[in-house]
């Protein structure tokens, strides 16, 4: 019974864990491995209390937006991350207008905005008409 519960654990000291370490480190962001780095950049270019909305290629809740929103909330603590899509896939336009910054990752956005910071596949925008 003990072995049944913990058999896979018992192998850990005897295997090359480097592969497991890499796999587990990538696991949360396996779809977009560069997303955490982008969020880290957004964090460095914003201040506590700022409101930020996130735009990603998947603007469907279960199709990837929930991941992006939750992950952004985790990396951008202290700021207020506003969702642009709800769990039932309704768009929340007012959050787009209310956010001080728009963090855009993996897509282009054609709106009048100033680019605050840009790197890799992402950019931090500040909308012009306030």
């Amino acid at each position, binding site marked *: 019974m003990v072995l049944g519960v913990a058999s896979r654990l018992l192998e850990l000291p005897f295997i090359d864990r480097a592969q497991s370490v890499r796999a587990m480190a990538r*696991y949360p962001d396996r779809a977009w491995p560069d997303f955490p780095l982008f969020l880290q950049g957004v964090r460095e270019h914003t201040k506590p209390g700022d409101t930020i909305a996130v735009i990603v290629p998947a603007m469907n809740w279960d199709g990837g937006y929930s991941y992006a929103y939750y992950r952004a909330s985790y990396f951008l603590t*202290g700021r207020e991350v506003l969702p642009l899509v709800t769990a039932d896939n309704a768009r929340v336009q007012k959050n787009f207008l209310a956010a001080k910054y728009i963090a855009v990752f993996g897509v282009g956005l054609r709106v009048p905005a100033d680019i605050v910071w840009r790197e890799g596949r992402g950019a931090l925008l500040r909308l012009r008409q306030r």
Partner: protein
Amino acid sequence: MTATLVAILSLAVLGIPIALAVDRRARGPLLIGTAFLYGSGTMYFVLLTLSIAHIRWTLISVTIASLIVFCVAALIARRQSDDVASQQTKLHLLDLVTLFTIVCYTLYATLAPLWEWDFWAIWGLKARTFLEIDGIDWRFLESRWNTFTHPDYPLLVPLNYDFVALLNGGWSDRWMGLTCVAWAVALALVARSLAARETTPFFAALLAMLVAALGFSRYVGLAEGALIAFGGAGVLFVRAALLDDDDVSWRHAALMLGFAANCKNEGLALLVAVTIAVVATSWSRAPVRLRKLAPAYLLAAPWLILRAAHTLPTDIVEGSAISRLLVRLPHAHQILMFLAEELTKPWFWIAILIGILLAPARRRERFTYLVTAIQCVFYVAVYFITPNGLRWHVLSSWPRLTAQIAVPITFAVFLMLANSLLAEEDAPHAEAGFDEY
């Protein structure tokens, strides 16, 4: 890693006088195991109290508050009589195997920064958010956009992470998995010590190994590890209290169950399940025994009051729970079949069931069986009223829930079987308390 290790050690040291105030006889595994659990639970209340008092969490404020608790507990412990015989646990070679499994779990829990979705969407997110303002961010919890974090969940685990982060001088989730190891080890030590009172060192060591394995939550970073530890220890202490009618075990039980209620809502349900089981198994003495459980409710109360005061929503009761129940009741057999199909480690549960049927002295363990059964009923009842998709809810929670209740029932069944293999004189307490219920 150093900061996390120092945090774990600090919690254990903070808990030592508390454990001794509860049980002056505690030594060895029991003292170490309960000390860490009390330290962890106390740190939650220290940070909660500071936050309510609008005192910012800093290393200094937390240290001063902890020292006050430490000194008060030490004074209480010193006042207690010294002439009680201390409890010694004889070690066995098998304990080395348990130690090896702990090393294995430590390697697993620290493979990478905590990777579980629910860590960075619930438990870790809250801890990291609170750390930003050095206190509980009620505005964050009350925000309609943050209902995904389950704002109603109690905060023992996030606030323990905050303590680690305070010692670390900032947020880092790289080594926080070590706290899950510490909770599992603490439970194994408690189980080892309690088992040693009832069986031989060999079987006690074997059981501790099993309990350790069951306490190794694969959901590292979530509150499961803490809940399994506090809840498991709480139920085991109630069991011991019922068998020996021992006030010390009642005190341990009440405190552990109170802390379990501050880990997750399932911990609160466990407290209710234990209360019902105590009443059902000792009807004539129930009022006296329920009074002994009162501290658990006192510990659970602050969070319940705070979450009501801040109107933090509970997702499972939103909308009309009754109408969802009525819609699903006609499909009860399908739902139960689905739960049976999705049972993780079915052979483990079949072994437990066979053990219950085979073992003599089943009556002796009826409290543990009843608690497990009632808690299962609570779990299943939630599936009947959940506003989430039933299939998704079951798949995402059922393996975790069944893991939460595995330790006490395994402990009881194992001891029954082990003691039935031993001659009566080799099995201390084997039948003690049989009629005491």
